[in-house]
């Protein structure tokens, strides 16, 4: 499952990740990391059965953990297959098919929300 980990300013990101991997023995597959002077954000895939252990290890060190279980949903009646969403998605959820239909690979979605504003037809929402 996909999770998002947010680190506040005052804790150091890298040692923590190393520590929790050692502590839980869980495979934490980082797909995106964004760390700057004000905060750190990591998107990672974790095995479902180890989620609780990872979550506890992280929260006890001051990080917050969100499960990314609201991937993008498209209203097919509104979508006109323009493809505006294709170039803004950081993980390439959208792509053109042979016939210029816009296909989605929802599995990849990290729920950043940027495509919602891009879609001129209001066809995209994050699921509930």
């Amino acid at each position, binding site marked *: 499952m996909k999770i998002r980990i947010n680190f506040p300013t005052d804790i150091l990101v890298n040692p923590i990740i190393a520590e929790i991997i050692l502590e839980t023995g869980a495979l934490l597959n980082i797909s995106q990391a964004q760390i700057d002077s004000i905060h750190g954000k990591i998107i990672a895939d974790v095995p479902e059965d180890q989620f609780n252990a990872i979550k506890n290890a992280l929260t006890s060190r001051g990080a917050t953990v969100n499960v990314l279980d609201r991937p993008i949903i498209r209203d097919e009646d509104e979508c*006109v297959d323009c493809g505006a969403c294709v*170039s*803004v998605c950081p993980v390439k959820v959208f792509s053109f098919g042979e016939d210029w239909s816009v296909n989605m690979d929802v599995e990849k979605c990290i729920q950043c929300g940027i495509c919602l*504003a891009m879609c*001129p037809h209001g066809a995209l929402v994050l699921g509930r």
Partner: protein
Amino acid sequence: MVEKTIHEINNRIKDGSVRVVTAEEMVDIVTELGAEGAAKEVDVVTTGTFGAMCSSGVWLNFGHSEPPIKMQKVWLNDVEAYTGVAAVDAFIGATQLSESSGMEYGGAHVIEDLIRGKSIDLHATSNGSDCYPRKVLDTTITINDLNQAIMLNPRNAYQKYNAATNSSESILHTYMGTLLPNYGNVTYSAAGVLSPLYNDPTYETIGTGTRIFLGGAQGYVIGEGTQHDPISNFGTLMIKGDLKKMNPDYVRAATFEGYGTSLYLGIGIPIPILNEKIALSTAITDADIVTDILDYAVPSRDRPAVKQVTYEELKSGSIEIDGKEVPTSPLSSFKIARKIAGELKDWIKKGEFFVNAPAERLPTDTVCKPMKQTRETPLVGDIMSTDVLTIGPDSNLCAAARKIMESSFNHLPVVSKNNLLVGIVTAWDISKAVAKDKFDMLEEIMTRKVITATPDEAIDIAARRLDQNRVSALPVVDKKKHVIGIITSDDISKLLARRY
């Protein structure tokens, strides 16, 4: 030499022997048979485009009320329409925004809702007269209650259009969609190989009176569009059609975040192949159409071109800028453009649609001029205050507080020994530090990422930057980052108040 007449082609449409292909299919036919062979083989080439066409709208006639009103202002679902003509005629434009819902709903949505047969609230006001005594009117209408609903678009079907990117460090919301920072993406519009005007670039067959596919119904070209600029291949069309016959699949309201509403409109134009010259021009490919990628981070009429590319490169999904792969995406739907060219082809094959010669050719020599401006646009340098005080980073809070008291500004730029801007502190920053008992050096509390202006910028640009960054003053710096003044939102609002 192949020479055909419109009459001959229409006879073939009538007897079902007409040969029609789309502009995409024509490419291979011309490659295979040559222009002459293709001109013999094909009678009509169909084109199509489906994209945002802001310069669109509809003339509505509501019929007279009892007692009658001469509408002076009218709103449809709270979107104002223009009624500065006879009593109950009004023009609803695609980009006019709702007065209550803002960018979520606009004229384009009213137009789509009308086609979908939805009820629309109408509110009108007037001064009243002897012939039109009524002053206020409220009613609910659908498209069937209107005498006419005539789509009349001043500028549609751009021959080609620029692509857009963003060199700045912040995200931009434009009519070209969301543009990600640091050349994060490129967006483009227009149908390329299927583009109506690009398939007839010298306007041999498309002109005043040409019958076309418009929004799923038959419509007409009524002449060149506004800003028609054939010399730079930016030809445009003015277009008319009956909204009552249109299909919502091809007329779709849209909202561009931070910009406003627009109308996605489907247009398809048939090109009768009268000779091999016309056959050859319909063989244009995406690789033949070149356009500029403009930098929308430059808030000017003359945006610099970052790169020249072909539609083929744009459609490949990514292009290279400064050695970096940049993803591209269209804003117009090629899938629907194709569907339109296909549908028009079917209409012609079934004998439901006939081609015609234009009553008049479109101009080929006009240009699109910039606006004549008789008043200088004021620049930051004209209204900035030059009596700005600055302070060194190693000063303490008390010194900064004293300086702020002495000066008339809440903002104190922090400069290094050689007068280079390194930070800024505000009266608020100081109060905050004091409240927390933090009496550090200024360096510790100042904001390092200072939003600045330059003296040669238009004040509207500085005003927008103030708004976007939610700050109330900008230090003005020269090219070497020396502080030469300060401009505050107060200065700007005073000036704007005078201008409005």
